[in-house]
């Protein structure tokens, strides 16, 4: 699924040059659940952004499903993301002006899926995530756990091969966090590849493999 070789990401300003990633190389096979761990500022989120085609590396190779994507432009990256990659963020990142169903349907909207089909698939996913009863509510009317379930529903509705989760339980209490991790595990068991950034050892224990990052480099890889 994912092949990363000698990835570098350097952030340059007038005064300083920051090496967020320094020669990172690893692979993720189809259906794997990989956790990326490390202290704050080690480059986890930067790596996730590159994997999610939200950013380009400064140097190195990134192949997604065998296709080199490291140097693609914005439009190509957008096209490639559609239907292939789903995102789950720590701060949910739902759109306040859209209700639950509309938030969930968002990826299908940009894939050109007709309204009827969108509605059907959204209902299916809401059922799965146990949030159908909140269909018409807005994000600020939901609890944290519910919001994250909506975010996960949005991430999976297009049937992506890969889900990237950036601290998915960071803003949740333990009960809701547990619920979210169980959902992710379930998705993984159904064949979805998951790459998750986390601080939590507990959350990382759901993964097949842990990659430890430190100062932009992989220091350890641990199979579980």
């Amino acid at each position: 699924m994912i092949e990363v070789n000698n990835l570098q990401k350097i952030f340059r300003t007038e005064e300083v040059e920051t090496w967020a990633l320094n020669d990172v190389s690893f692979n993720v096979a189809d259906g794997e659940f990989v956790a990326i761990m490390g202290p704050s500022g080690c480059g986890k989120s930067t790596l996730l952004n590159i994997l999610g085609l939200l950013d380009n590396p400064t140097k190195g190779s990134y192949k997604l499903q065998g296709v080199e994507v490291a140097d693609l432009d914005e439009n190509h990256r957008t096209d490639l993301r559609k239907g292939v990659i789903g995102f789950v963020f720590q701060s949910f990142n739902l759109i306040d002006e859209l209700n639950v169903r509309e938030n969930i349907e968002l990826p299908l909207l940009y894939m050109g899926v007709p309204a009827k089909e969108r509605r059907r698939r959204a209902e299916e996913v809401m059922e799965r995530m146990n949030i159908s009863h909140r269909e018409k509510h807005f994000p600020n009317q939901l609890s944290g756990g519910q919001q994250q379930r909506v975010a996960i529903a949005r991430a999976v509705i297009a049937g992506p091969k890969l889900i990237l989760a950036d601290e998915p339980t960071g803003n949740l209490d333990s009960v809701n966090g547990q619920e979210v991790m169980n959902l992710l595990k379930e998705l993984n068991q159904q064949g979805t590849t998951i790459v998750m950034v986390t601080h939590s050892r507990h959350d990382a224990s759901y993964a097949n493999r842990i990659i430890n990052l430190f100062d932009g480099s992989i220091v350890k890889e641990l199979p579980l």
Partner: protein
Amino acid sequence: MILHYLKIALRNLAKYKAQNIISIVSLAVGMTVLAVIQCLLFLIRKPDVYKEPYADRCYTISLEKEADDGLHNFTNYEAHLLLSNGGMACVDKLFPVNGSFESGYVNFCLEDSSYRRKAMDLVLVRGDYPNYRGLRSAVTGSKVPVLRKNEVLLSQSMAKKVYGDTNPVGSTISFYFQNELHDFVLADVFEDVPLTESQDHHLLFSFYDDDDFDWLAAWIPYCEVILRDGFTPEQLKSEADARLKPAGMTVSVKSLKEQGKGSISDITRIVIWVAGSLILLSALISFLRMQVQLLRMRGRELALRRINGASASKLFLMLLTEYAVTVILSTLLAVVLTDMLIGFADTRLAGLLGDWNWSWHGIYGSVLTQGAVMFAICAAVIALCLLGSVRKGYAISDTIRGSGGMMRKTMLVIQTVISTVFISGTLSLLQFVAGESRLNNIPENDRYYRKCILAQSYRINDKIGFQRELQGLRHADRIIPYSESFTELNRDESDPVGALLKDLRLGSLRNYHLADTALFDFYGMKISWNRTPEQGESYVLLSQGYSELHRKAGKELPDMETASDGRVLPVLGVYSTKPYSRLRSENISIAVVTPGADRTYDSYILVPHKGEYQALMADVTELMNRFSPESVELDVYNFRDRIGAEVTILDAMRGGALILSAVCLIICAMSLYSTLLLSIRARRKEVAIRKVNGARKADVAILFGRLYISLAVISILISAPIAILFNQVVVDMSDGDLTAGDISAWISAVGGILFMLVVITVTVWGNIRRIMKLNPVDYIATE
């Protein structure tokens, strides 16, 4: 607490710098436009001179009779004898109103025994008439006195030009009346009346004791009467009819007070005021929209303040302080802008606007009132927004999402409608100006004539010396002399041409006296020659209008024509229509060409060398000063301003329409821009999330553009009929000279709509391009 509010207000102003600058400038411009329009409306009012107890009983009796020569439609003097002889039962007092004037040169004797001279309109009045009329003395502030025999009244502005700051009451003024030179005493100086009734050039003089007033000496188109108590205007008309109908006259009776309300009707005044306030309305809407949007974005801040103890009234005061700062800044800017504009206009209008500054009508009163009204409206809107949320306990953002969204959309529609109507109106006015320009024969190279000078030698005694020195001016490239005079026309109805002339009410034929055809070359006029003149031969050319008159009458053009000096000369051709001519007397004319004549002329057109207009104007002015030092106003003019006076009005109309329209469009565009900017700023995260989920530029364009396009469509549907209606008003303005074909409603309406659509599209697309450049990573970072 107020300091805290001020601190927050200034921080918020700085935080949303672009939007606030746009708001402040837009509001200031709107207030300035309205203040200037108020000033103009103030100026074109008639003075309320009828403050007298009998004001409600003043009526005019207009008398019309076709005289034998068919020329005049005002009253014959016998009518006044009929009316005044023995008095009228309905009438307490009767005043003849002296409508027209003899023009003559007036000599003003100064304190040092020198004199100054000016051509003026000499208006014979009954001595008690100006006092009855309520003219106010500029010296005492009371009504002007009843004039005794041989006393005169002069306007304030003319007195200033002649005497400067000296009080001229008691000075001697002399002029010819009834072919004799008479001395008069200046009894008083009357206050200037507003713009459209300028009596700057009128000299009111009394020549008879009231009872001996010579009606024959005055030309009187109507009488003013004071209706006797207990009588009605209908009775007045009946009595006047009974006396005058047997003499073949028709009578109309009108209330003087109703006529005195203004040279424009109340409705027109209101329409002009409303049109002027639309720009301010547009700016205010923009400001309110932005404030409502900002309020939504500040929901969290306001909620936190409430949690920390702020009551609704304290929140209201805090927001009010912010609006007060904005309104105060825009008001101050408006005062400065209005002052500058009025000052500039004042210099062009010879100081007529000066007094307006300090009265309650003035800049400060007008702008401050507008500022206060705007502040009150802002306070009301914000109070409504806050009240809803406090009462219902909703978050402010929810309240505003619900009601504010509709409010914002409505305001955007209103703004777009205003701008579209303004642009359509401008297109109508531009078509009007183009049509009037055609009717006035304004040449295509009109700008060329702005760099030419006209000098007239009527008041100069040593015309030969003047002409000699004029011809020696080094800055002049060429000098074209000419004179004008008139020949009585034969209006014998048995002659077909005479009959046409009578229909046209033309009594005299204008003669242009020339030394050669240089005048035609100057104007770019073409001459169709019957034959070439021989060396030194004097001849006549006929105007195209005169030639067409003969053709219409079925007559051949004459071979010979009599000039005003009595010479009978051969007709050698026809010249095309002279530019800047609209009067029939200009279009129906002849040119008398006398090569090599040793004579002086009344008028000289001077064309300067390139870039030397100012230098030549200075030279001619100095020359004129030397040859007629006593003249109050020198007869040296910018050629185009003098000859094409109507063009100046059309220019002003064109310029005014374009400026107003541009201002409105800029305000609307800036408002759209600032709203979009704010909207984008508020929705960056949303756009980032959409981009992460697969949105491309077109998807974001649809997201933002959809709202604006639908609002634009609604605006178009509303503004199109308004634009078509306004177009008809403009057509009516031309008094039948132009038709709907000349001023097309479709061009105006469609043009305005297209213009607005382009503005909306460019503004929206520009902002979308900006937002598409944002990196989603910057907005969805892990906390």
